[in-house]
Structure formats: structure tokens, C-alpha cells
């Protein structure tokens, strides 16, 4: 039975057609993967289904009934629930309180917290979610918070669940747990739409799939059987993409960056404890680890944004010190992990962002004033070289898609010809096409003799790109070795601290 049918949906935004006569159908009791690159229209289509925006054309049927969904409340009443990429939970409140909000049980006048906890406990038990109703949300891991979001949708009577990029924030183990939950829900008769651009996950969990590209439905309701990752990539990108591209360095050069005994104290405990490693020219050193284990702070120290308590820190034999400006001058490039907080200034134009950090260079200005033609020419060249999709170099950078914003950051750093590049989450929120491009550029730079430090939460990315992998857990490097020497499971375990008992003992001693 079809629980959702969307016919001939059209949605226009100024100058672009986000959805171009799109048809979509969801079978009851199935997991349907909605695939597409960033900006393909996946989220827009689902926002229309959830009533967060209205289509310019087309109509929707829920369980055979024609419906006009104009706001999320209406969608919830129709049994549609959505788990957003960014959780919408109140961290100081309990799991139960977060779940029942919107239709709370009451004792006539007051909120009935006991009944809420009871109802939520039943719900948790029914689907085997392994969380406590009375726990504060702030004490939960990201994966557990996601389960609270799912429960919230179920509590409100969702029969149709939309999960927006649910695995983007999870570790490999948590992804497995999520899949178990999804199968459990399918068994209970729920229908699930999984918005994603990850092929592996689609192949692992989905029954059927649809692919969107540039607002058009390329294939709709295709059964997963007999489909390969390469097929999917071709449908998504529109051409062949080599997904398994790896390219190890042929020669490892001399030491470029030497770090010894790096320690950074936090309020209660050390954020970074006694980190030591070498980074060679012609080498990509990948840092694997779950976010929040000191990677961000490591980057800040290595780029001059934070001062460490203890460190011996040498780049090409000279000891490093100073602030971000000095580090940039020393030809240390930095692709920040979060482009919207540290990487870009969204309110400013593409050309202004393309020179950020290098804007004092005499090629851009004379006597304190910019040379507009020099700035423009440089921006045009970058837009061309790095295939940045933008209307003009004077467009507001925030109006670009995530992938193109990332290309602006990449273009800015790579074109400066740095000796040492610190690259964090280079392909987060970036589509396959742009990802492939960024990876190739990284290989290219490495082969030119640059030293590259790669920090990424995407384990596949770290494994494919790195010549050596360092695993970080709790502010320490627990292991450093060649990628071939780890299995994915081993890496996952080390990232969660399971096989580092030795380190923990040291701590107590």
C-alpha cells in the first residue's frame, strides 16, 4: 500500500527551480532512501511533505486521501514525523519532558511528570531503545539524543518517519545501532524515509530508493536488489565516479612538522595530554576520532589560535610561536573544521572571502585601499580553477551551496601554496562531486611535497586519504599506524576508548 504519494511537485526559488515536476511514493512498512547531492532538492521535497514549505504546484496524498499540508502540526496530525539533522531538544530537561512536549499529560492543571515518564518508559520498552526516561538530555550521547528525537515523533503518533541525514553525526557503532532501531520500526509497521547522500548506508538499510539530481527525479521507487554503489553514484552525480579512489604516497619526505609533549589544560582535566607526532613532507597524516576528543583544540594550537601549556613545536626546524597571523605568514594553511563559524564570513561577498587571511598581501591593495580589479581578477581565476558555482564574484557567500562555500575556503588556502596544510572536515556537507574534487586536490598537493594534517569525523575519508592514521581518544593519541594495519572495527573501537585500557591505567597512576 502507498502511504505517501506526491505528484508533480514544483517548487521555485528566485532564479532556481528546486523541484521540477517531481513524483514520489512511499510504500507502507518499508525503508525508502532518498538520495541526492547537496542542493538536489531532497530536503525541499521532504519539507513540503512535512508542511514546512508549500509547493508551487502538485498535490499530495496520504494513505490515499488528498491533503493540503501547510504546516508541521497538520503533518503530525496526519501521522508524519520528522527528525531533523540538528536536534531540537532542550538539554536541561529530561528525556520524558522533551518527548511529551506539545501534548503533555496533565492532572487537570499541572504537568503530570510521573505519567509522562510512565508513558515514555513504555514507548522505550516497546521499541527497545535503551535510554532512561528520567535522564537529562544533556547527559546523553549524540546517538541517544537522536533516539529521543525518534521517540518524540513516535509519541506524537508518527506512522511515517522522515530522517534527515541521520548518520552525519554518528560514529560507526552508533550507525549500526540506528540501523537496528530502524529495522525494529519497520517490523512495527512504520514507514521510513531516509534522506542521505551516503551510498553505503542506502545499500545497507533501504528497501527501495529514489534519486534526485538538480531538482529532477532521476529514478523513483527503485528496488535495492541488484543495485551497486557505482550505479547509485552515477545516478546522483550524472557521470562515473571512482568511489574507492585511494592513492598512497610513493615517497615520504623529510619531517615538516614536529610536535612533542603537547599539553593543553582545561577547567577540570587536560584537554590534550602529552601529544607527540611527526608530519612529513609528501604525507597525509589523518586524525581519526569521535568529535570532542581534542581534535578541535589540536587544530587551534597548530594554527596559532590557542596557546598550549607545554609544547615543543617545530616547523621546518624553526620553533613556532605567535598568533594566527604569524602562522599564516609562515605558510601554514588552515581549512577550518566549521566553515560557517571560522572559515567564511557569509555576509560578505565571494571575492571578499577568497582573500580572507591573505587580504593584506600587496597584490590586493595599495596604500591601504583595495585594488578592485586585482581582487576581481583573482576571484574570477579561483572561481574558474576550483569550479565554484556562483552567479558572480560579488555574490554574498552565504547564498552559495555548502559544497561551493567549502570550495571557496579550499581555493583560498590551496592557492596560497602553503608548505603545511591543516585540513579539518574538508568535505563535511559536501556532495560527491565536490568531495571527489577536493580529495584529488589533496593528493596533488601531497605529491607536490606538502605536508598535510587531515582531521575528519568521516572514517572512510580518513582511511582512503591518509598515509598514516593517528587515533585520538580523550585528548591522547592512542595509536598511530598505516591505514592497512587497522580494520574498520578496530578503528571504531579505539575511537571509543575500548582498547586503550593501558592509557586509562596510566591516568589513574
Amino acid at each position: 500500500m502507498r502511504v505517501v504519494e506526491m505528484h508533480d511537485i514544483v517548487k521555485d526559488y528566485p532564479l532556481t527551480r528546486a523541484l521540477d515536476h517531481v513524483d514520489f511514493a512511499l510504500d507502507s512498512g518499508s525503508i525508502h532512501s532518498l538520495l541526492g547531492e547537496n542542493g538536489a532538492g531532497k530536503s525541499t521535497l521532504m519539507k513540503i511533505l512535512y508542511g514546512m514549505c508549500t509547493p508551487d504546484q502538485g498535490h499530495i496524498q496520504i494513505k490515499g486521501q488528498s491533503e493540503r499540508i501547510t504546516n508541521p502540526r497538520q503533518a503530525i496530525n496526519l501521522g508524519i514525523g520528522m527528525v531533523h539533522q540538528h536536534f531540537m531538544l532542550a538539554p536541561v530537561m529530561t528525556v520524558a519532558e522533551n518527548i511529551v512536549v506539545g501534548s503533555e499529560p496533565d492532572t487537570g492543571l499541572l504537568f503530570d511528570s510521573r505519567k509522562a515518564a510512565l508513558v515514555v518508559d513504555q514507548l522505550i520498552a516497546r521499541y527497545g531503545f535503551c535510554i532512561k526516561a528520567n535522564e537529562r538530555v544533556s547527559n546523553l550521547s549524540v546517538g541517544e539524543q537522536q533516539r529521543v528525537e525518534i521517540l518524540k515523533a513516535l509519541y506524537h503518533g508518527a506512522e511515517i518517519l522522515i530522517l534527515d541525514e541521520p548518520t552525519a553525526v554518528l560514529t560507526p557503532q552508533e550507525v549500526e545501532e540506528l540501523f537496528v532501531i530502524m529495522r525494529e520500526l519497520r517490523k512495527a509497521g512504520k514507514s521510513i524515509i531516509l534522506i542521505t547522500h551516503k551510498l553505503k548506508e542506502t545499500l545497507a538499510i533501504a528497501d527501495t530508493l529514489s534519486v534526485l539530481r538538480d531538482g529532477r527525479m532521476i529514478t523513483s521507487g527503485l528496488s535495492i536488489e541488484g543495485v551497486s554503489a557505482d550505479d547509485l553514484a552515477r545516478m546522483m552525480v550524472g557521470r562515473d565516479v571512482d568511489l574507492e579512489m585511494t592513492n598512497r604516497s610513493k615517497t615520504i619526505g623529510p619531517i615538516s612538522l614536529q610536535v612533542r609533549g603537547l599539553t593543553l589544560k582545561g577547567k577540570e582535566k587536560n584537554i590534550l595530554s602529552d601529544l607527540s607526532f611527526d608530519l612529513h613532507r609528501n604525507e597525509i597524516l589523518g586524525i581519526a576520532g569521535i568529535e570532542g576528543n581534542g581534535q578541535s583544540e589540536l587544530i587551534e594550537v597548530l594554527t596559532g589560535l590557542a596557546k598550549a601549556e607545554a609544547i615543543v613545536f617545530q616547523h621546518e626546524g624553526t620553533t613556532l610561536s605567535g598568533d594566527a597571523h604569524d602562522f599564516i605568514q609562515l605558510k601554514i594553511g588552515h581549512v577550518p573544521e566549521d566553515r560557517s563559524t571560522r572559515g567564511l564570513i557569509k555576509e560578505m561577498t565571494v571575492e571578499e572571502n577568497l582573500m580572507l587571511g591573505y587580504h593584506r598581501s600587496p597584490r590586493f591593495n595599495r596604500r591601504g585601499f583595495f585594488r578592485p580589479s586585482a581582487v576581481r581578477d583573482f576571484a574570477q581565476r579561483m572561481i574558474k580553477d576550483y569550479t565554484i558555482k556562483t552567479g558572480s564574484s560579488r555574490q554574498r557567500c552565504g547564498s552559495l551551496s555548502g559544497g561551493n562555500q567549502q570550495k571557496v575556503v579550499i581555493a583560498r588556502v590551496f592557492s596560497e601554496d602553503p608548505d603545511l596544510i591543516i585540513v579539518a572536515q574538508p568535505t563535511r556537507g559536501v556532495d560527491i562531486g565536490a568531495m571527489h574534487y577536493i580529495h584529488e586536490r589533496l593528493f596533488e598537493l601531497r605529491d607536490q611535497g606538502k605536508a598535510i594534517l587531515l582531521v575528519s569525523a568521516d572514517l572512510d575519508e580518513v582511511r582512503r586519504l591518509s598515509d598514516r592514521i593517528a587515533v585520538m581518544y580523550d585528548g591522547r593519541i592512542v595509536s598511530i599506524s598505516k591505514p592497512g594495519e587497522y580494520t574498520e572495527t578496530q578503528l571504531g573501537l579505539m575511537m571509543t576508548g575500548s582498547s586503550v585500557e593501558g592509557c586509562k591505567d596510566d591516568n589513574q597512576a
Partner: protein
Amino acid sequence: MTIRRNLFRNGGNLLAATETIRMSTLSLLLAMVVSAIIMAICRYNPFEAFGAIFTGAFGNSRAISQTLVHATPLMFTGLAFTIAKKASLINIGVEGQMYMGAIATAWIGALDFGLPAVLHLPLAILFGAVAGALLAGLVGFLKVRFGSNEVISTIVLNTIAINITGYLANYPLKADGPTAQTNRILPTAELPRLFQGYQLTAAFFIAIAVCAIIYLVMNKSLLGYEIRCVGYNRLAAQTAGIPIGRVMVVTMLISGAVAGLAGAMLVLGVDKRFIVGFSPGYGYNGISVAALAADNPIGVVFAGLIFGALNAGSMVLNRTTRIPTDFINVIQAFVIIFVSAPLLVKDILPFHKLRRKHDK
């Protein structure tokens, strides 16, 4: 549609600019309509009121001159607020910085160095700017060094500045006579009147020139670029190696200098001396001006003129009708409300929505 498309092709900047101008204009009109309704409720004739304001602002050449005279300090104070805002700093202290500028200018202007006007006048102006800059620079320093909130420190320093200048004008610098004011400035320090019998001086054109210079600095210079970077995204600016603290202090210095100029121009062009309590709140009204100007230095010229016209008109309103001039403040307050709540304006005005649909 084609026009929209062309605007987009120009990088969307023009579109953004026209949209801003439209929103500011709509907010102003809406503020006047709502104020008119309130007048009507209070049993005053709004047509009579706006008629009087219009006559007072544009009725004859003298009225126009008055509009420009009233606009001048508002352009300076509006610009001072706008400059700080570019670095995401809220300079509530424009009023106090203006008082410091005024007293410094009045002091230098009244001293007899035997200097010719070409030297004495610029020297007096310079002292005004420096005095304002120092007070604002202190605010910037406190923020950068000790993390004090500039909103609070500027409010406190306003009181301090107004009282210090009040003390100076009451004791060490007091002119003979009953009123608390300094000696009259020397003729060599006076801003010359442009036309016989009119109050209008070169100060008005200096204000426009300063607005234009600030526009260029903000949009075309390295300093302006760094100020905007700090204003929009402090973390990104830090990552790019921009010295955030220094940029904030420099921004406050410039903002304070412009605020000081407001005081200097009033002393040299209008009052000819420092008078205790000379400002009817020019510093605070500068916030309204900046809001209407949508933080654009060129917009400040026009917003200053509009508020200048309202203020000039209020004189005639006061003289010829029974309608309280407080309504001028009501209009200004509504302008701020509507400018700072663009969605409210879009909701109130149905044709705005219709147009959008039509565009598609």
C-alpha cells in the same frame, strides 16, 4: 521579473540595496501613518500637524536652511553609531563623546593664540574629534582588555562625560554672567555662515563629506574590510589572523572622533560656545538615524535629512498649533520599531506580499 534578474546578475548587491531602501521608506511612511492615527485618537488633527511640520521643514528658504542645520548633528551622531555597528559594537556613548568634543572645541575656540582662521578653526575641530575619540577609545580598551560590555560602559561614561563637561563649564571655563556656559569662541574659530541671515554653515557639507569618506573607508579600504570581518564574524576574523582587539579599539576611536565632530560643529557653527545641556539628545537620536539608514554611511545622509526635517518642523508645530511636539518623538520611536522589525512591516502591508507573488 527581468529587472529582478538583472539585479541578481549584479551579484544581488543592487537588489539588496533597493530592498533596504524600500523597507526604510515603508517603515518611515508606516511610522507617520501610525503616529497620525494616535494624534487622531488624542483629538489632534494629523493633517494640521503634518502640514505644520512640512511648512517648518520645507516651507521657505529659511525653513530649508533650518532643516539642514538640524540634520547636521544627526548625520554625525548617526554616522558615529553606524561606524561602531560595523564592528558589531553598540556605541550608546555618542552623546557623551559629543559633549567631550564640544567642550574641547569650545576651549580651544575661545583661546587667543593669535592664529589666523585657517589654522584656528581646523585646530578647534581637531581637538573636538580627538576628545570624542579618546572617550570612545577608552570604551574599546576596556572591552578588549577587561571584557567589559561596551553598552554598559558607554551608558555610564555618558553620565560621567556630561557631568565633567558641566563642571568645566560651571567653574574653570565659565564665562562671566549667570548662565553655565563657556566664553564665546573667537571669530577666527567660527564656522562661516554660507548666506547672510541664515544659520546654515559649512558644517552641513563637512557632514556629507565625512559620510562619504567613511563610506569609502568601510567598503574600499583594508581597515574597513577588517572592521566588517570583525563585525560579521569574530571567530572567522581571528582565524584569518586579523587582530580583533586592535580593530575594535580603532573602530571606537573613529566612531568617537565623528561623535566629537558633532559637538565641535554645534559649538563652532550654532551655539558659538559650550552651553551646559546644549544637546536635546542628538547622540541618542543618532541611533534612530542609523537604524533608518540601515547602517549605511550614505543612508545616514538621507536619514539625517529626514530627521532634521522633522526636528525643524517641530519648531513650527510648536509655534503655530496646540499639538505637542512630543509627537516628533513618537514618529521617531515608531521608525525604530518598524525598521528593526522588517517582518512586521511585511505583514502589515498586504501589497508587499502581493507584489512578491506577482514577481513569480
